[in-house]
Each structure stands twice: as C-alpha cells, then as structure tokens.
C-alpha cells in the first residue's frame, strides 16, 4: 500500500523495478522518480533494455518485480486515464490514411488537449500543408513528425519516447528539444531513451544509465 500524498508525490516513480524474460534479467532493479517539469534521459547501449523499460513504465509489460507509481498510485493498464503517451519504434500510424485522419483517430482514442487542433499541431511540427497527404507519400522523418504531432494533441502528462531523435534531421532534433522544453514548462514530464548519438541539449538533463545485463 502506498501512503504517499498524491500532491507531493512525483509524477512517476519506479521502485526496485526489474524485468526478466525467460528468467534472464533484462534490466533492473531500478529506483528513480520523475517530477513534473522534468525531462530525463535513459542512456544505454543496444540491448540494455531501454525499450523494455519504457514498455514496463507504460504498463504494456508487467514488471517481474518492483512497482511503478503514477502520482503515487500503482499503475495498471486500467488506471492509465489519458496520462501516459508512448512513442515507440513503431509509430502507430496508418500508411493508407492521411496525416490528419491519423491524428483525428488519435484524438478519438486518447482525447484532446485544450487549446490545440490537429492543424495547429501539424503546423508546429513543420508539416503545415501536409495534412491531406496520405502518410505513405511522406518521408520517414515526416512520419516521425506526424507521430510527434500526436503527442501534442493528446492530453498526456507523461511522455515516454523511445529514440525520438532517430530518423530526424538537424531541424527535427531541434524540434524534438523544443517540444520537450514546452511540454516540461507546461507541467509535463518526459522520459526519453537514447543510445548517445543525439541528446536532449537544453540545460543538463538528469540521466539514468542502463547497463546490459551480464
């Protein structure tokens, strides 16, 4: 039972969190907390379990041991009421639909943040005028930007971003950093993974290092 006061409880907290597949440890045990307004980098080599960690934190995978607390309460899939947005290697976009159709579906499923529309979101990721293009005709980097626009639209306070810088050009990397800054200033928080080539450059973000299990 958690007795933490939800007001001062951190947005996200991991307590001796560990995950094993087929009895082989993937990561952990890990202890960390993420406050509102914070962006934290998860660093580690390939195979160190970064993606798995994000899946466990989002509730897609159940931890082998330990627990994940969201606002001081145990996280289960049922409780994830519009609070967590996950952007993985697979973007979750349909190639046969246009960018706007994809975003409208995301809103239907996840809800809409106040004061923003799909068109505005597309404009702020630099895809103004691409709204009615089928996603199939966009480049890999542009598809990634559509997925970033989805993050702006849904009212999730916690962003879990798996390699958000991959496939993006210099402008795109700056865009991700700008979006993260904006999200953090608005009281949100984000966990991002990176294998080190690109990184969140604004300020000096906290880092969590993952090591490949022996």
């Amino acid at each position, binding site marked *: 039972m958690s007795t933490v006061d939800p007001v001062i409880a951190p947005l996200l907290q991991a307590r001796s969190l560990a995950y094993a597949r087929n009895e082989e440890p993937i990561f952990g045990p890990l202890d960390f907390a993420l406050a509102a307004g914070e962006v934290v980098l998860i660093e580690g080599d390939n195979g160190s379990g970064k993606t798995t960690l994000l899946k466990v934190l989002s509730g*897609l995978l159940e931890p082998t041991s330990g627990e994940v607390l969201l606002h001081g309460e145990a996280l289960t899939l049922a409780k994830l009421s519009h609070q*967590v947005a996950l952007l993985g*290697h697979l973007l*979750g976009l349909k190639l046969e*639909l246009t960018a706007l159709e994809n975003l409208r579906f995301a809103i*239907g*499923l*996840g*809800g809409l943040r106040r004061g923003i529309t799909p068109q505005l979101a597309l404009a702020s990721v630099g895809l103004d005028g691409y709204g009615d293009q089928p996603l199939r005709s966009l480049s890999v980097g542009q598809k990634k930007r559509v997925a970033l626009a989805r993050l702006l639209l849904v*009212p999730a306070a916690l962003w879990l971003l798996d390699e958000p810088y991959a496939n993006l050009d210099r402008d795109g990397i700056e865009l991700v950093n700008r979006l993260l800054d904006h999200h953090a200033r608005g009281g949100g928080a984000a966990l991002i993974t990176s294998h080190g080539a690109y990184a969140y450059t604004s300020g000096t973000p906290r880092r969590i290092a993952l090591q490949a299990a022996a």
Partner: protein
Amino acid sequence: MKPGSTSAACAALLRRDLTLIWRRRGDALNPMLFAIIVVALFPFALGPEPATLQRIAAGTIFVALLLAMLLSLDTLFRSDLEDGSLEQLVLSPHPLALLLACKIAIHWLTTALPLIVIVPLLAQLLHLPDRVLPVLLVALALATPLLSLIGAVCVALTVGMRRSGMLLTLLVLPLIVPVLIFGAGACNAAQTGLAFAAPLLWLGAWLTLALVLAPLAAAAALKISLT
C-alpha cells in the same frame, strides 16, 4: 461525443477501420472470390448431376464460407501489430474488450456480410432448393458472427507469430465444429422436410453467449500475447 470518451473511441476506431478497408477495397473481394472458386470446384469433382449437387449444396456452401472467413481472420490484428497501432489500442484508457468488439464487428461486416450476399448465387450453382435458401441464410447470419468472435480469440493468441496460418486453422477448427453441425444441420433438416428451428435456436443461444464472452476472452488473450 466528447473526444476521449469511450463512445468516441469506438466511433473513431470504426471510422478508421472502415476507411482503411475502403482504401484497400480490392482486397475485400478476395474472400468472395475464394468462396465462389471452392463451390465451383465441387461439380468438377462430383459430376454435374443436379441430384448429387443438391444433396451437398447447403453443407458445401457452409464449409466454403467458413474457410473463406478463416483465411481472412489472420489479418484481423496483423497490420495493427506491424505498425504499432495495437500498442496504442492496448494503452488507451478504454476497455480493450470493447475496442476489440468494434474490430470484430468490422471484420464481420466486411468479410462475412459480402459472403452472405453472394450465397443466393452459390445456391444456384449447386441447385439448392428454393425453400432451403432462407434457412441457409438465417443459419449463416448466426454462424458467421460466431466464427468472427471465436476466431478473434484464437487470432489474439497467435498474434505475435510470423506464420500463424496453419496453427490458426488448428486452433479454430475444433471450436467451430458445433457451429458447422448446427448450421448445416438446420439446412439439411429443412431440405428433408424436418423441423429446423431447434438447431437455429441453439446457434442463436451460442451467439449470445459468444457476444458477451468472446471480446473479453480476446482482450485477455491479446494481453498474454503482447507481454
């Protein structure tokens, strides 16, 4: 409908899947072609005598439709898994069983309904007596949603596998034996002038049960497959 509410989510999912199928409407014809081909093969194998064909007509059409649906089942979650949409569905705050029920409904609407529409044509090919046709249509209207529902549970169990075709058939087949027995049985009873209401009522009862349980089971199975 407020964006983010469960009804909005279901509506968005229905709209998205229907749009997707409309954009790939060529693929949607494949099950119908398959069913016509299977039915057309039987006269070649058994000879063209109307009396022979008439006797096997209802059963053949039933089997052809079930096979056509079985082939299309594999695609139920396939593309959603490959592009990551399935993760987004599972992570959404709405009951997964309800979202899956929407997907199953779409599957039935876009594969089974067109198949049922061409049944009168298939019935003519095999000289099915006119008085049996309504019974066959009712039996199929009850049996095909059952197959979509039971199939969805099995697809959810095999969703992570690259080649699940044969295994899926193995999983689904024993579960739909009763559907086939009652469905085709009702038609055969009607053809020989016997009472056919009881098997149809059984199908209806089982469909009601599956409507409630199968989406829940599919959601549980999907969670097992994704972890």
